């Protein structure tokens, strides 16, 4: 196994980020248990970044575990598979884990309890497959990034065909507080992860794998080192614990010392980053032919009796997971899907979890730190915390005054919305909300502008058409008039001639 240590100078020179209370225990210390089958499974169609999947089943259809129920709609999309056998009882709107609280489309399956698998085509030695074949099968299995962003994994695998990839980085940083699903997965299924990473390496044509794991997870590091031992091309690297270490660019910089250019992709510097959970899912998809129908979810928070990690089917509603974690001991101030820093607050406990849901948190008001925002004292904590070197207070000021363009000028587009600034703010200013608002507003204006341009074109085309029609009409009219006049003249002439003759 190759050995790689982060140079101390790079540690010293990086000043970004924060050290929030980790609060990973007790969940991190307990084994993953199976969450079981809930009475209804709700499979959201838009659980991946990109276009929502297109349903290919109808209400009343019987589906098997692992059967594709919705196909990918476009190049950046992913299919959805039934996570157990049962009957499709609804295709329509269902509550979604989205900040707006608006519903989204989903396929609801009532399990029949048999949990019968569809026929699986496993490959005993998937590493021998061609890169294109690996990417194709991963796409078919509906594997998406399992760290939260849920970007279709196959798209990143196919990158190797277009740009030269040198290094695959396995993201095992799990920098968000509370979450320990990756930690547990690395401890319990390290071999799957390493095998999956090698498949990703093969698919992208990279020559090495670096697994970056924060130093607050020593057991995971040990387990991964053991699993990686047979493979010289795989190295496990201890990285400092700091939020947001799991952000793609920050992780690349910490491990390799190169900065991916703003606006570009990691592939521009020859790197692809995959979450450890994604690597495990890739392995399962190729070795066992199992599509992505379940994932490890951390169910934690101060309002829960027994926080722990569970292996849950995609589409399991929150209330079911909460029951698996001992139920609520008190009314939570917030229910969060994802981590506390970047997760989404939900109000409906029927909301299902998607492929990207790494955690389900029932947080008390003390944990959330609810208090009224007060005036900014310009302490600059947010500037120090920002991992990309922005000035959140200045941006929020400008957005507050309605100067979205100015906020954009000073870096709104580079914001990760990681929440580090919001966490450290002593005045509890909702900085991330400002940025999300400004970005949404700018995007909405952009959409509206496009629509107006489109309408303008139509209007001008129509005006031109109306004018042309009128002109043609007038011309036709004039022509007819002329013809008639000519005919009359002819007639008159003929008449005259007749008269002449008769005379």
């Amino acid at each position, binding site marked *: 196994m190759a050995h790689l240590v982060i140079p101390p100078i790079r540690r010293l020179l990086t000043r970004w980020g924060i050290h929030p209370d980790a609060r990973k225990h007790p969940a991190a210390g307990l084994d993953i248990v199976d969450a079981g089958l809930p009475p209804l499974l709700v499979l959201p169609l838009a659980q991946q970044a990109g276009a929502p999947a297109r349903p290919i089943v109808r209400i009343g259809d019987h589906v098997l575990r692992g059967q594709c129920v919705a196909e990918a709609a476009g190049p950046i999309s992913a299919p959805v598979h039934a996570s157990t056998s049962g009957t499709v009882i609804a295709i329509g709107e269902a509550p979604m884990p989205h900040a707006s609280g*608006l519903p989204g489309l989903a396929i609801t399956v009532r399990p029949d309890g048999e949990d019968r698998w569809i026929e699986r085509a496993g490959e005993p030695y998937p590493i021998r497959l061609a890169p294109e074949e690996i990417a194709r099968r991963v796409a078919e299995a509906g594997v998406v990034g399992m760290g939260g962003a849920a970007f279709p994994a196959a798209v990143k695998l196919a990158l190797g065909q277009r740009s030269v990839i040198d290094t695959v980085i396995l993201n095992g940083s799990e920098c968000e507080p509370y979450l320990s699903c990756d930690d547990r997965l690395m401890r319990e299924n390290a071999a799957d992860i390493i095998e999956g990473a090698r498949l990703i390496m093969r698919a992208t044509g990279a020559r090495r794998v670096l697994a970056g794991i924060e130093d607050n997870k020593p057991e995971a590091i040990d387990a991964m080192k053991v699993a990686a031992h047979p493979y010289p091309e795989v190295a496990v690297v201890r990285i400092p614990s700091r939020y947001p270490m799991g952000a793609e660019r920050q992780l690349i910089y910490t491990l390799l010392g190169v900065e991916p250019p703003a606006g570009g992709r990691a592939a521009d510097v020859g790197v692809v980053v995959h979450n450890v959970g994604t690597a495990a899912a890739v392995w399962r998809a190729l070795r066992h032919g199992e599509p992505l129908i379940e994932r490890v979810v951390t169910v934690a928070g101060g309002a829960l009796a027994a926080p722990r990690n569970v292996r849950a089917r995609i589409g399991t509603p929150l209330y079911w997971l909460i029951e698996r974690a001992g139920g609520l001991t008190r009314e939570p101030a917030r229910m969060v899907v994802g981590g506390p820093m970047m997760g989404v607050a939900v109000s409906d406990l029927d909301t299902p979890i998607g492929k990207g849901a790494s955690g389900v948190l029932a947080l008390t008001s003390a944990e959330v730190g609810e208090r009224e*925002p007060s005036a900014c004292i310009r302490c600059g904590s947010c500037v120090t915390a920002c991992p990309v070197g922005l000035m959140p207070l200045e941006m929020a000021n400008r957005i507050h005054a309605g100067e979205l363009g100015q906020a954009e000028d000073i870096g709104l587009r580079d914001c990760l919305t990681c929440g580090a600034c919001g966490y450290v703010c002593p005045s509890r200013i909702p900085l991330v909300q400002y940025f999300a608002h400004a970005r949404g507003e700018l995007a909405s204006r952009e959409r509206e502008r496009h629509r107006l341009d489109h309408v303008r074109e139509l209007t001008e085309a129509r005006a031109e058409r109306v004018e042309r029609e009128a002109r043609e009409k007038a011309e036709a009219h004039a022509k007819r008039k002329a013809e008639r006049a000519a005919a009359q003249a002819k007639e008159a002439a003929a008449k005259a001639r007749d008269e002449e003759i008769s005379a």
Partner: protein
Amino acid sequence: MEQMITAVMSLTAIGSGLGIVLGVAARRFAVEGDSRVKEVEDMLPAANCGQCGFPGCAGAAEAIVAGTASPTCCPPGGKVVALAIAEHLGIALDADEVDDVPLIAVIEDALCIGCTKCYRLCPSDAIIGAMKQLHGVFEDACTGCNQCAEKCPTGAITMQPLPLTVGTWVMPKPALAA
């Protein structure tokens, strides 16, 4: 007396000398008139719907440049156009002031008699349909100019905001106390 003459003479000399210089400069550095009316007109949606109270978009553009109308006077253009014009002309505009939702025409199926009046009126061809057939509205092409609703004999057309979806939802701006 002599002093007065000197004063008058010298000031006259200064004045006329400078006057000649300026006169020459005025010719030398002559600049054509205001091109801004045309620029503003190009920004307006060109629907010529008359909702602003001016005769067509050209009239509105003139009024906006002259300062007699606010850039927010164009309902079909909405916030986007208002902000663009305000920025172009250097007018201070509070974004919250123009915080309106774009409206589009919605046809009530039960009331539509298929008279094609709206279809013929629509300046952006946003309405489809034929005689005696149910009409429909292209959401993407409708400016919400309200001309169809005015002329609809059965009142089947209403102007309604675009439906909110997860894709079009915008995080609200925080209401900061203190």
